[in-house]
């Protein structure tokens, strides 16, 4: 067990290398790439939120845009209506995400697997409608523009980039720490052996609510980062399809929680629409094919490896 913990610690140290590379990137690549990468970091946090729910709760969500919208509008509204910067809005986003995650988890506490997935689907569908109908605060279709700097005097493009990177690293590091913590272990136990967890005093309902709360909080942080790094908040960013794309990102990264894995998922969610923007109809086709490809790969790869290993052993 200690060996495993050491492995986890070692892998977290190894993930500092890509962080160093990413930190140097704005001085190498152009402004538009800096902007895109900032969005990419934000989406990686969203992918992490979905993967966290899968890993710790064993549940699939296709409604995480609810939480990202929450975080994004916390930032957008505090910025445009009250002139407050991220120092105030990020904590608010986190609190909102966690508490509404819990608020959603309570009525759905006994739902599992497919039933929960369908409920989150309904949640995702309700999001754009809520945003558009609360237009006195959310700005409706037009959305909000986030312009208050985090640190006055520093160039805004760089701020948008580094905030995204810092948030992603902070969240990924926190999740890695959480894996080693007693609470993290408890949640994993509650997922894999509910009866054993029950015997140790962890009720399944409690575990579900905790996982949903944390996942909702991470989702809200994704939204907050998305709002700041992407500079605009509008209902178009929180559609049902966006929620599915987050899940696709999570599947593509094999539900990984490490920095490197979620970056792959986030890059997938961000870059595919950018690269295919000239031919919009291919985006869903490409997403669908990659989703299927990754699922089938996850299914057949272990078998192929086994067959190969057997052949090697026989020869």
């Amino acid at each position: 067990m200690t060996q495993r913990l050491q492995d986890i610690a070692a892998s977290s140290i190894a993930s500092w290398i890509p962080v160093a590379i990413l930190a140097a990137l704005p001085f190498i690549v152009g402004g538009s790439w800096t902007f895109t990468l900032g969005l990419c970091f934000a989406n990686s946090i969203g992918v992490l939120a979905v993967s966290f729910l899968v890993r710790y709760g064993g549940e699939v969500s296709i409604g995480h845009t609810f939480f990202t919208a929450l975080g994004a509008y916390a930032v957008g509204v505090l910025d445009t209506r009250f002139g407050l910067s991220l120092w105030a809005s990020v904590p608010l986003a986190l609190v909102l995400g966690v508490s509404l995650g819990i608020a959603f988890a309570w009525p759905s506490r006994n739902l599992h697997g497919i039933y929960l997935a369908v409920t989150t689907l309904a949640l995702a569908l309700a999001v754009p409608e809520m945003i558009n109908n609360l237009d006195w605060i959310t700005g409706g279709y037009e959305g909000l523009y986030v312009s208050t700097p985090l640190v006055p005097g520093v160039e805004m493009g760089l701020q948008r980039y580094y905030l995204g990177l810092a948030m992603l690293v902070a969240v990924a590091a926190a999740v890695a720490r959480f894996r080693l913590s007693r609470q993290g272990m408890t949640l994993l136990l509650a997922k894999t052996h509910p009866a054993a967890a029950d015997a140790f005093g962890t009720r399944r309902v409690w575990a579900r609510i905790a996982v949903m709360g944390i996942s909702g909080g991470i989702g809200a942080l994704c939204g907050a980062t998305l709002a700041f790094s992407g500079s605009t908040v509008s209902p178009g960013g929180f559609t049902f399809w966006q929620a599915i794309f987050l899940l696709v990102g999570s599947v593509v990264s094999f539900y990984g929680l490490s920095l490197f894995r979620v970056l792959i998922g986030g890059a997938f969610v961000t870059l595919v629409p950018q690269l295919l923007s000239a031919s919009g109809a291919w985006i869903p086709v490409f997403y669908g094919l990659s989703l299927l490809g990754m699922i089938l790969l996850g299914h057949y790869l272990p078998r192929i490896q086994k067959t190969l290993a057997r052949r090697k052993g026989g020869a």
Partner: protein
Amino acid sequence: MTFWDTLLYDLFPLIWSGMITGCLYALGALGLVMIFKCSKVVNFSHGNVAGLTAFLVYGLSSGVLLSLSWGMAVIVALLCAVAIAFLIYAIISPLVFESDLTSTIATLGFGLIAQGVTLLLFGADIVALDLPIPRFAFSVFGLLVTGYDLTVLAVAIVTIGALFIVIDYTKLGIAFRAISENPFAAEVCGLNLRSVHLFAWVTAAILGVIGALLIVPTTFLSVTTVATFMLQAFAAAVIGGFASLPGSLVGGILIGVLMNLFTFYVSPEFSSTFLLGIILLALNIFPNGVLQRVGGSRV
């Protein structure tokens, strides 16, 4: 007097039209439930595939792709729907026996592909697709009944009746029920799980096409119309307990009527939020569907 007037002129027509759309939700929900019952997979591609076939009917009959008669176009579209169902099941069948959640996510992938193909073939435009039915209307006790209403009702009754007869009395239907009850025992008895699953997928695809063709005249046809319609079907299936065919019929009609009442009396802008509320409420009060009593322990 005024109370009775409003009842007569608002409430009854609302309930009537809600029941008509409810029948269509039930058609969609039945397809979802058939697949779920035997293979425990929720088919998220249902709406998009049905939408694609509705577009095929439009394309084949309007001259965009071909200029066939409406009937021929429907037959070709049905064949396409069956072929697509075959293809989807063939690809995900190895996953079905491993993890129902993974195969459910895989159906999302097919939904995305179907949506993309629709966009590629027909673009993002809105088109009109009508049914070749006689236009007439008459009123019964102040209730306006149109030819469309009667068509929907007749088609829904015939389709659902035929489905229930097949499931209750034919060998295939008995096999379907056996596999839904206990797949392992059914396989031990020599039933082929895959062929019964395929029966469910193909039937669901056909129900989807029928539902899509009937719902489109009330609105218009765009890439998202049928997918949106199928979301109500999801809610109907959830209310029915997701594993009960009569339950989804009741759920469909209930959703149709409730949605109609809500949009008329409360607000048309919060219909999806209302749907979310209904789903959460239904799952908490009737975790096994409206037609079943809550029983046993839920550990």
